[in-house]
């Protein structure tokens, strides 16, 4: 697929079209830094003075580039699709190559950053178990009841929570069986067909 650019985005990027590839690379570095850590307006002023253009133009250029990168990563554009998309904006072969380098080099990282921003559910981290035999309690001596203590560690938005749980042998076997069926389900013909067809 090709990216569809909005007019304002095209206009913002048009400033980059005429830049020297070296300068464009510098813009690429700044954009990546901003994607990682957020924008820093001071950088715009410095660059604007050096290039002798209004601060706003530089700002729009960098923001346009950031948007280009995040959108391309969002749709996981192939190299060819990326180049074709950029070509419609009028970039020369040299600058296109510079942009493609920037995209391929940082695609993973930007995807990771996007992944971090995405909605997440509390997810499994770790499970520890131990096997105990209850021998006596205040109200009943001479017991013999096996119990399995479990510590389940889950993570939600970077915060880890551990939950203490307990179960008995019968339920442990039951639980293991049920989850094994769950794992098997992913290998079923139905699931494999769906996975194959969703691209």
């Amino acid at each position, binding site marked *: 697929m090709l990216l569809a650019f909005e007019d304002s985005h095209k206009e913002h990027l048009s400033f980059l079209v005429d830049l020297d590839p070296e300068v464009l690379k510098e813009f690429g570095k700044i954009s990546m830094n901003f994607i990682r850590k957020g924008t820093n307006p001071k950088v715009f002023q410095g660059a604007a003075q050096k290039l002798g253009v209004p601060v706003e133009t530089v700002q729009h250029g960098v923001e346009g580039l950031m948007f280009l990168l995040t959108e391309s990563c969002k749709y996981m554009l192939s190299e060819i699709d990326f180049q074709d998309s950029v070509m419609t904006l009028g970039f020369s072969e040299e600058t296109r190559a510079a942009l493609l380098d920037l995209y391929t080099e940082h695609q993973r990282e930007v995807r990771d950053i996007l992944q971090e921003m995405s909605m997440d559910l509390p997810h499994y981290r770790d499970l520890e*178990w131990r096997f105990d035999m209850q021998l006596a309690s205040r109200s009943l001596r001479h017991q013999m009841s096996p119990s399995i203590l479990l510590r389940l560690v889950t993570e939600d938005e970077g915060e880890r929570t551990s939950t203490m749980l307990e179960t008995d042998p019968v339920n442990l076997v039951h639980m293991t069986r049920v989850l094994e069926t769950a794992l098997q389900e992913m290998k079923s013909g139905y699931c494999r067909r769906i996975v194959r067809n969703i691209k």
Partner: protein
Amino acid sequence: MELSASALEHLSLAGDATHIPDKSFGKLVLCACQGVLLEEHRDVVADNPAFKDLDKAVLKSGYSGLVTLLLEAAKHDSTEQTISTILEECKYTPERVKELNKIFTIQKPHLQLLIGKIGSSFPHIVDIDWRLDYYMKNNHMEKVNSAVYLISLKTEVAGETELKEVQFSCSLEQLQDLVGKLKDATKCLEKISQV
């Protein structure tokens, strides 16, 4: 098993034929067992017609003495021998000792099951639900395309009537890790049970 002086005194009252006739004794022991086991039978002794001719104060003391004995005996898993020794000290006739032991032996497993449940524990897993989703995209990203399992552990919590849930999600790899660990635990259990 040791009983306090007051408990022994109450127990002696229950065994005294001048206060509690032989025909009522067996019923009283049974009443004591059921009073412990079933909540709705807790106060039944007060209105039971079998005991209507008895002195209420004596009945109450005797009943409490018997309940104490039964609970302590169940707690320590006492033998008939131990119980007999205590009862003989409380001047019980051999017939009454035999009658009490007969009833207790039948009720002991039930009593022990009940008092075994008392105590603290972590939420106890009794069932597990799962659901398999295919995570396709979100507002930031297209083509995420990965399998996600939503797992819900049903747990029993002491003092709560309804089951509680512990929910979390995991990827295919994480579920493999989880199942692997549970299998280890199951294997360990099987080994122990064979020893």
